[in-house]
């Protein structure tokens, strides 16, 4: 069952993907198929089963609060598509910070 077009549009927006019309149509089909396969897990009895978010049983991993050398400004900006005055330059921002 394809997922509906509104959902595709919403998800594409959340994921910051400017998909073409054709891509959107295909996504709706393909995601539908994959999710249909995933639906198989809905049949399982999962009540009382704890979710696994980590594959290791390690706890409380921390590093000591010690400062280490940073990259130089030149190194930090060396891969920047556009930089100006030691900063990364981006087109204008329309939305306020969250």
């Amino acid at each position: 069952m394809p997922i509906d077009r509104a959902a595709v549009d919403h998800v594409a927006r959340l994921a910051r993907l400017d998909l073409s019309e054709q891509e959107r149509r295909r996504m709706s089909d393909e995601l539908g198929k994959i999710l249909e396969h995933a639906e198989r897990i809905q049949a399982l009895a999962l009540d009382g089963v704890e979710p696994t978010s980590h594959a290791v049983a390690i706890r409380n991993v921390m590093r000591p609060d010690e400062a280490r050398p940073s990259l130089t400004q030149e190194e930090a900006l060396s891969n920047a598509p556009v930089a100006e005055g030691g900063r990364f330059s981006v087109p204008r921002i329309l939305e306020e910070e969250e």
Partner: protein
Amino acid sequence: MTELPYVAATELAALLDAGDISAVELTETLRARVEHLDDKLHLFLKRTDERALSDARAADARRSSGDRLSLFDGVPIGYKDIFVTRGVPTTCGSRILEGWVPPFDATVVERCSRAGLPILGKLNMDEFAMGSSTENSAFGPSKNPWNLKTVPGGSSGASAALVAAGGAPWAWGTETGGSVRQPASLCGVVGVKPTYGLVSRYGMIAFASSLDQAGPLSRTVKDSAALLTIAAGHDPLDSTSIPQAAPDYLEGIDRGIAGMRIGIVKEIESGDGMQPGVGERVQEAYQRLEKLGASIEEVSLPSFEYGISAYYLIAPAEASSNLARYDGVRYGLRSSDGSDVGAMMARTRAEGFGDEVKRRIMLGTYALSAGYYDAYYGKAQRVRTLITRDLERAYASVDLIACPTSPTTAFKLGERTNDPLAMYLSDVFTVPVNLAGNAAISVPCGVSADDGLPVGLQLIAKSLDEATMFRAAYAFEQDLGWIDSPEGRPPL
């Protein structure tokens, strides 16, 4: 003597120590071999010939002054292009990272460099490791040396093909759902998925962080054991790294498997998408293990069949977040389109990512989004728990679990590219291991009678029980004798 490109690293080490060959000779030989292979197989995204040679010269100098860095000082290696390499462009198979030059080395790379392994270059892969054929590479697919019309598997396809065709004794790949074991199986080499947390993920470009794990590929079991020994062990830069030193996996590898209990999975039946030739070889392999003194018994893993469903929710969900950083702001591609920053990001991502990556980002974003989390991501994490429990239960009665690595041999280029689900199903036997975090190996068990292509046997061990896994795989490999025979080499 075997031609140099097919000599195992463990043996090369002895030749280097004896002064029979030099690291420069070895590196030159492999470079020439790679030159020949690369044209046909399209293996490298970036070759570092000059650096490899200067590394080799340094290794020779160290050996002659008696202070080699390790047994393997001067034995060259290739890295899947998912490993970040200082000063060497790293793309992860994606347009979006084209031209990116990292300012640091992955821990795996750093540890191998510290052991003196010259770097041959960066190997092709499915974009961001998403795929099972390398056809999703933004830079064109690699090919299987056994049959140029077939895929080498993926996502570490070029790493497996390189090793299979004698371009290097060993290479590093990475796994999220089988991306080392499956190409190893399809190319007729050894591939290892270590226990999650054994090898540092620092500098390994993330696909799905809770599943990703680096793994060696090599022609022999011993070489994989040796390479894992070099890189494994705690890394303070990776919070999920298991805080203990790794043992020497070569130690005791030849103790045999007499008395070992090996389980075969009741729920895996022939038919059901399994190629008959694969089933035959694997059945023979079980018998061989029994002949070698192991006891074979059936174990039940009822949740195994839900692995793919859970995996294709969990991995894309994590990927959708891991890949959010590719936005054209700090590095990599930036679209010239877009009047504001949001539009620029959305255009950059649309132009820079391939179809499969977009598909998984969409799928993962959907699975995490409000209203669907519980039904999809949350449930998948519970299935993950079930799979882990099933395996734990099985290990109460067996030491290892054996099954095919892949239900089929290498498939034809283009055969599954239009059917994502069919492609996903080629991971059916490998994915549950990633979900549970256990160790597993794929070891060649000959070629399939129906197409003459390699078949891999998978041995799944308990977490951190790589030693048992290597012991069994080594005993099997030695008894089969395939890899050292002319039949064990692709016709190339």
